[in-house]
């Protein structure tokens, strides 16, 4: 599938109807989502025929992009029922199979390392400090091969240090810097649209069995 086609399909998905600010619900735009998954597959072969998990899936954009690029099993996780309903309906609209689990990422308990790749656009930690790092910690425990994540460029050093030093990541690389369009979603948003500089990261977890438990 070509990048433009993927971007087009993702652009047709339904998004949050009543976004909840305390969960930092912002749609992952088709521009970013398509590039994240396209890079993951074309540069690293982390998507096709793999088991992919979308942490904090919201309306399912990243997970569905993974399915469109040939992931054999995709699971979306989110704490919010309404988002999961929208994600489910998006999956139906595209005639794609995607499992969903309603849960709190922090309390996740999954067996072994069945998941190959985790993709996520986590909350940035503007409402609940450290939320983004909570997501990363769990992602690095769950993924066998790679974690793709978006974090604000201003946090780059902190993210790298924490991932390598505290979360046992074997590597932490910024693949590229992107502009995240934040539309005027919430009452406190003054401007029609704002660009936030975000880094697209690829983390490699420590291989299972070598972990310090």
């Amino acid at each position, binding site marked *: 599938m070509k990048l433009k086609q993927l971007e087009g399909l993702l652009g047709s998905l339904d998004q949050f109807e009543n976004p909840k600010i305390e969960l930092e619900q912002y749609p992952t735009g088709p521009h970013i989502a398509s590039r994240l998954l396209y890079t993951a597959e074309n540069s690293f072969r982390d998507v096709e*025929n793999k*088991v992919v998990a979308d942490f904090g899936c919201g309306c399912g954009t990243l997970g569905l992009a993974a399915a469109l690029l040939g992931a*054999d*099993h995709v*699971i979306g996780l989110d*704490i919010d029922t309404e988002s*999961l*309903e929208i994600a*489910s309906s998006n999956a139906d609209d595209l005639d794609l*199979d995607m*499992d*969903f*689990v*309603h*849960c*709190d990422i922090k*309390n*996740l*308990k*999954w*067996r*072994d*390392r*069945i*998941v190959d790749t985790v993709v996520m656009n986590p909350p940035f930690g503007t409402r609940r400090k450290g939320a983004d790092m909570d997501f990363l910690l769990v992602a690095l425990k769950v993924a066998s091969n790679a974690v793709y994540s978006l974090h604000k460029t201003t946090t780059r050093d902190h993210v790298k240090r924490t991932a390598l030093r505290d979360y046992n990541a074997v590597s932490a690389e910024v693949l590229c810097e992107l502009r995240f369009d934040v539309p005027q979603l919430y009452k406190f948003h003054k401007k029609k649209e704002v660009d936030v500089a975000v880094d697209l990261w690829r983390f490699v977890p420590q291989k299972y069995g070598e972990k310090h438990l």
Partner: protein
Amino acid sequence: MRLLTHNMLSSNIKGVTNGFPLLIEVEKVVEKQVDFNEDFLRNMFPKIEWKALVEASRTMGYTELPENAESSMLDSDEFLGKFHHALVELHLEEGALVCPETGRKFPVNKGIPNMLLHEDEV
């Protein structure tokens, strides 16, 4: 929810040591046909907890999986077909997942299990 996902999930209640596999209570099962992918099945086989898959598929009404399996069976198309069907074509649409240690039920609605914990379970 496919049984592949069920094969990963464990009870996340505080203090539970044997939370896997979750027992299944069935109210509605749906079968959805999916393209067969032999490479995927071969990759998944060593990662799957076989007994849990057999038990789960039987609870869902599918009794074709052998009690025990080893990788040499992957050379049989018939076995691959059954493995494929159980792993990715059976969906628990309505019902519950049950913690094997505490009996606590995690409801499954429209195929989505609710694994949110109550305050005293965290």
